[in-house]
């Protein structure tokens, strides 16, 4: 297998975007192509979850290839729920590592604000089990809420811990101009004042409004290349060194221990093994905080904290910028936004930015090793990636 490097990255602002879906993907891709200094690719993969349903568009990758004048490159769309982005990066890795392609563009895109909030919630809920979950009105916030209730009961996580994640990540987004939420929040405003319960009502008890990521439009892109090509292009050498992916039961209630996220555990273990790394080696991490509880639970399953102690590390500030293992310093899904198909690629964008030392106010000093965790379904399809700066 050949080594694979990230030679270019690009992103759009995450917000409500009044542009065609393919143009959002193309905009991020143009930035990535320019950053890498290439005008041709062998293959592109476009990660997206909802185009056929939400945007009434199919065969998205063909549209993006033509829009970018990348013809006659190979092109394919990859739909893997909220883990589409990292799944597309995995496909790009395989294309380069196998020797089949030298330059691959991976773009992730979603335009969810084309429909109203109720329809967007329903669109995401279609990833649940059709007969055993979806017909009951289950939404992703409902799954996260039932999971949170168990976590509170078993490990002593409280609404205060959840709010701490929300405050940390939404305020971190203030250091990221591309992030959706550009409004600082305080514990007083969302938890500790008489107005807090009005500001921050329940979405699905015990989860509140500020425990959930916003519904966003946006795109992100990276260019994957062989080592030979990377040396030729002369960008900082960031190697995609580890990939793990794992699945879990479709119906969440079938899991033997309902507070375990076994697919997260397995994906991270495999990624570390492939990269020859341990959780202690990671300098900066992007975890999939679609809901605040997920950052806590994933930080344990990935191996940064023992099971049930993620919230204690959070309390000590270990997951904040300047802490032992800074998590979601660019805002995470909570602050940056979560255009579902784009998220896995946006996480890689943030990690590469960090490993290049381009993080500005949110830079983790001397970061050499980064990790992304892209969480699909309610933990039934998870992709973990590790990145290493090599020079």
């Amino acid at each position, binding site marked *: 297998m050949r080594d694979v490097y990230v030679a270019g990255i690009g992103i759009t602002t995450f917000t409500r975007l009044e542009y065609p879906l393919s143009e959002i993907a193309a905009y991020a891709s143009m930035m990535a192509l320019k950053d890498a200094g290439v005008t041709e690719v062998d293959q592109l993969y476009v990660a997206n979850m909802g185009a056929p349903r939400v945007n009434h568009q199919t065969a998205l990758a063909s549209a993006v290839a033509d829009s970018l004048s990348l013809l006659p490159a190979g092109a394919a769309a990859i739909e893997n729920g909220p883990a589409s982005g990292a799944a597309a990066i995995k496909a790009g890795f395989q294309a380069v590592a196998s020797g089949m392609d030298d330059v691959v563009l991976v773009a992730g895109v979603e335009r969810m604000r084309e429909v*109203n*909030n*109720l*329809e967007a*919630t*329903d669109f995401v*809920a279609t990833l649940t*089990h059709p*007969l*055993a*979950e979806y*017909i*009951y*009105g*289950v*939404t992703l*916030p*409902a799954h996260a*809420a*039932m*999971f949170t*209730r*168990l976590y509170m*009961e078993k490990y002593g996580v409280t609404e205060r811990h959840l709010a701490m994640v929300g405050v940390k990540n939404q305020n971190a987004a203030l250091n990221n101009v591309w992030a959706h939420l550009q409004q600082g929040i305080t514990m007083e405003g969302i938890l500790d004042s008489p107005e807090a319960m009005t500001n921050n*009502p*329940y*979405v*699905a*008890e*015990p*989860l509140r409004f500020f425990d959930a990521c916003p519904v966003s439009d946006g795109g992100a892109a990276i260019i994957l290349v062989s080592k030979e090509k990377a040396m030729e292009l002369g960008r900082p050498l960031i190697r995609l060194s580890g990939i793990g992916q794992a699945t879990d039961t*479709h*119906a*969440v*209630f*079938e899991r033997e221990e*309902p507070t375990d996220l076994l697919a997260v555990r397995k994906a991270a273990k495999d990624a570390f093994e492939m990269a020859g790394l341990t959780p202690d080696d990671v300098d900066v991490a992007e975890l999939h905080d679609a809901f605040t509880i997920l950052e806590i639970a994933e930080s344990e399953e990935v191996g940064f904290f023992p099971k049930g102690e993620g919230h204690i590390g959070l309390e000590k500030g270990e997951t904040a910028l300047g802490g032992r293992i800074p998590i979601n310093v660019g805002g995470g899904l909570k602050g940056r936004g979560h255009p579902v198909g784009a998220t896995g690629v946006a996480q890689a964008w943030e990690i590469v930015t960090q490993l290049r030392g381009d993080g500005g106010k949110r830079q983790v000093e001397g970061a050499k090793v980064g990790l992304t965790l892209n969480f699909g379904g309610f933990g039934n399809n998870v992709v973990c990636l590790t990145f290493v700066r090599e020079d």
Partner: protein
Amino acid sequence: MAREIYAYKCRLCGTMHYPFRMVCKGCKQNDYFEFDTVPLPKNGKLLTYTTVYNLPAQYDVATLGLGIVELENGMRMLGQLQIDDPKIGMAVKGSVEVVRKETYDNYYGMVFTAA
């Protein structure tokens, strides 16, 4: 006749499944492909629950109670809750009722109340 929700029992190894899957998770024999249907028990205890406020467009109610229940035979299922003050571990009993209405279809599922 009372409506039922069924579990699927592998004819080869006896492993019970809910929901249905094409290949038995116990023996993984994909050349056998036969299951017997067994009605799921209706009583159990509540494992976890939530009240949802932002529902998909098809629901014209303000909030919806949902929960995961461990049934008497140890299997689990998700259902709607009609319980004012749910508690983890409480005993519940289920009945099969309409849980989702669409223009031409009614979808039936389990609705739990306090036992």
